């Protein structure tokens, strides 16, 4: 069983009865390896579909938690349980609870620095005083408004008024929290979460190849979520200055959010500002301000630094890329694709109305980028299978489209892997506006394949 990763949170969904025999069958060594390699800031095991478990049944997952913590320092734990399950886990692991327990996935997300939600008013209760404090700090750091109650009686009284709070937290326990550089995408900004002390180690833990490929794919806004950073030293300062210089060549913006200068020299801020890095107190100062978001590049893609030529190696793999794309869209729409034309030139979309686009980069043995332009109707149809209903909510369509393109990327990775070509893929980027998309795509030469699904034209473009 593999974790499903969304917004930087990986969730396992076992179901049925979990005992020692079944859980080791559910979680193979390969599954654990895949989890270790996953770029997730939080790994959870949902117990919502587990009706029975014993300690042996949970142990296989707890062993995985140990490995994930040891290697990636991410937050790990169980979620989606009732009082009975919570009490059982507490009893099983009373003195060795290094992992977290989140009553629901929604609650877990509050601790996962996910800014896709608005700031929440959260009622918090735990009979453990240190837990109450830890939860309040984490929630506050993540931009929420915790209301902590000290006694069970007070909690009962306050929680009776459900409408007063967005979320009520009681049966939740924070184990060791994450420290890694988790990556997630909000809209079209990439958010890196950094914490603790930033020193020379940042050069090792930050995935610069991934960052550069994200720039190449067209991401222009990179936000460092630095609420939990205690201080940074001169080595980290140099690292970020260099990062800012390379971003400037792409006209990209780097921002820090929530960085405190209590223990970091204020002169560092001036140096970083001189390099072009911007500072904000709250994540919402950027994400909720559409004008600023446009200005910072969260929706724009102008000025590509390098125009690299297509090479023979990539073109020879074109059938793999087309195959992966066509199979995925066919799978999602249940419609047959007809290949119409294939040419090497700069992208030509024709009619730009009612179209959405997405791009995903790949890097490794070969590197490049797949760009897809969908008629809105195909995008909606393709997303129906994942959403389960027809929707006109453009944000939801774009989010689901990103997942779909991620599936295409996964399939490309598998097909190339079969041909002994190892690549990694970037996060997908979506464009609700074709003009924004053309800013990045129009000056690139690539292979354009025009496809038709149910008489709707669909553009596949492979470039570097």
């Amino acid at each position, binding site marked *: *069983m593999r974790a499903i990763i969304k917004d930087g949170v990986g969730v396992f969904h076992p179901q049925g009865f979990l005992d020692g025999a079944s859980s080791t069958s559910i979680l193979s060594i390969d599954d654990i390896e895949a989890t270790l390699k996953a770029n997730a800031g939080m790994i959870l095991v949902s117990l919502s579909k587990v009706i029975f478990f014993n300690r042996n049944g949970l142990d296989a997952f707890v062993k995985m938690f140990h490995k994930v913590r040891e290697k990636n320092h991410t937050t790990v734990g169980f979620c989606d349980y009732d009082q009975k399950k919570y009490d059982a886990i507490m009893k099983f692991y009373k003195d060795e609870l290094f992992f977290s327990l989140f009553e629901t996935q929604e609650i877990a997300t509050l601790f996962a620095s996910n800014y896709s939600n608005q700031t929440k008013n959260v009622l918090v209760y735990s009979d453990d005083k240190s837990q109450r404090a830890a939860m309040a700090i984490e929630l506050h750091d993540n931009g929420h408004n915790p209301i902590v109650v000290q006694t069970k009686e007070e909690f009962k009284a306050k929680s009776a008024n459900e409408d007063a709070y967005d979320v009520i937290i009681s049966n939740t326990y924070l184990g060791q929290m994450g420290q890694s550089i988790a990556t997630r995408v909000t809209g079209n900004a990439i958010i890196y979460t950094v914490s603790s002390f930033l020193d020379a180690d940042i050069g090792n833990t930050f995935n610069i190849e991934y960052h550069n490929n994200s720039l190449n794919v067209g991401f222009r806004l990179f936000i460092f979520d630095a609420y939990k950073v205690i201080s940074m030293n001169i080595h980290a300062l140099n690292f970020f200055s260099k990062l800012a210089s390379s971003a400037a060549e792409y006209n990209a913006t780097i921002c820090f959010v929530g960085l405190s200068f209590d223990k970091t020299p204020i002169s560092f801020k001036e140096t970083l500002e001189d390099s072009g890095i911007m500072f904000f107190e709250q994540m919402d100062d950027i994400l909720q301000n559409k004008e600023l978001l446009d200005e910072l590049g969260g929706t724009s893609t102008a000025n590509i630094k390098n125009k690299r030529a297509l090479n023979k190696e990539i073109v020879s793999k074109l059938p793999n890329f087309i195959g992966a794309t066509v*199979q995925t869209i066919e799978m999602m729409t249940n419609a047959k694709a007809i290949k119409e034309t294939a040419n090497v030139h700069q992208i030509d979309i024709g009619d730009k109305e009612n179209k959405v686009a997405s791009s995903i980069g790949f890097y490794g043995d070969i590197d490049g980028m797949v760009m897809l332009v969908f008629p809105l109707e195909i995008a909606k149809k393709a997303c129906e*299978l994942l959403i389960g209903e027809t929707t006109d909510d453009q944000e939801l369509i774009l989010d689901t489209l990103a997942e779909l393109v991620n599936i295409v990327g996964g399939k490309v990775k598998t097909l190339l892997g079969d041909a002994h070509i190892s690549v990694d893929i970037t996060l997908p980027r979506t464009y609700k506006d074709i003009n924004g998309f053309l800013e990045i795509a129009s000056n690139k030469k690539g292979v354009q394949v025009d496809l038709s699904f149910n008489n709707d034209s669909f553009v596949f473009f492979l470039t570097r």
Partner: protein
Amino acid sequence: MITKAKINEFIKKIPPKSEILRSTIMLLNQGELIKAAKVATEDLALSAYLRDLVNKPIYGFANEVNEVSQIFGILGVERSQQSVYNYMINLLSPKNWHFFKLNKTSFSHLQAELSTSWHKILNHLEIKDKEIQNSITLLPSSIIISEALFCDKKDDVELLRSASDIDLNTILKRLCGMDLFDIAQVIATKWEMDPTISKIIQASSGIKPSEDEQINKLGKWMHLLLFYTLSKPTYIEAGLNDFIEFQIDYVDDIYEDFATLMEIQ
């Protein structure tokens, strides 16, 4: 990925009930065990299946049982009829499994496990109705249908599941407007099985509760039994544990009773 045409093609390929099977079931229905055994013996594949089934350790017979008349005598009317239905479902199973890691032996073992547990449950619920006894035999057909429809779509399903916690039943429903249990019902109709069987199977999906209280209750027991069985390592490794979604809330009110009966600790 899967189209309605593919479903129709699958349904079209389901053979009608043979004359021997029709007569065997009819005679068993009338309580004519010896006559039924005599007819059943004419179908060599059926005889071999029954011998193989009844000599599985799960049935717990000390000595090997060979004669069909002996088998029917030992099993009694209800379980004999159940075994014949299991054989019919088994006829639909593929020669080689691709989507699930199963084979003929492990599939018939699964059928036997479900049938014996169902028998235990119905004894506990003090239900003697023949059709209700038989209803369990149709449940594994949902696995065969999944295999038939998704056998060459394994990679696609895996990729889809890397993005969403989605089960085969939901994929099918969203793509074709028909789910595994609807197709199982079509099979039941084609084989002239009692309508009660189809109703219980639909309820056992966990997503289509019946308005009939007793059928709904049996659907809950069957849904829970299915997941109890599919939580065994062999079936998890076969990829069966998450082929449909476990509806934990649906079975909540019978769980304690089930756990006591199955001695789950």
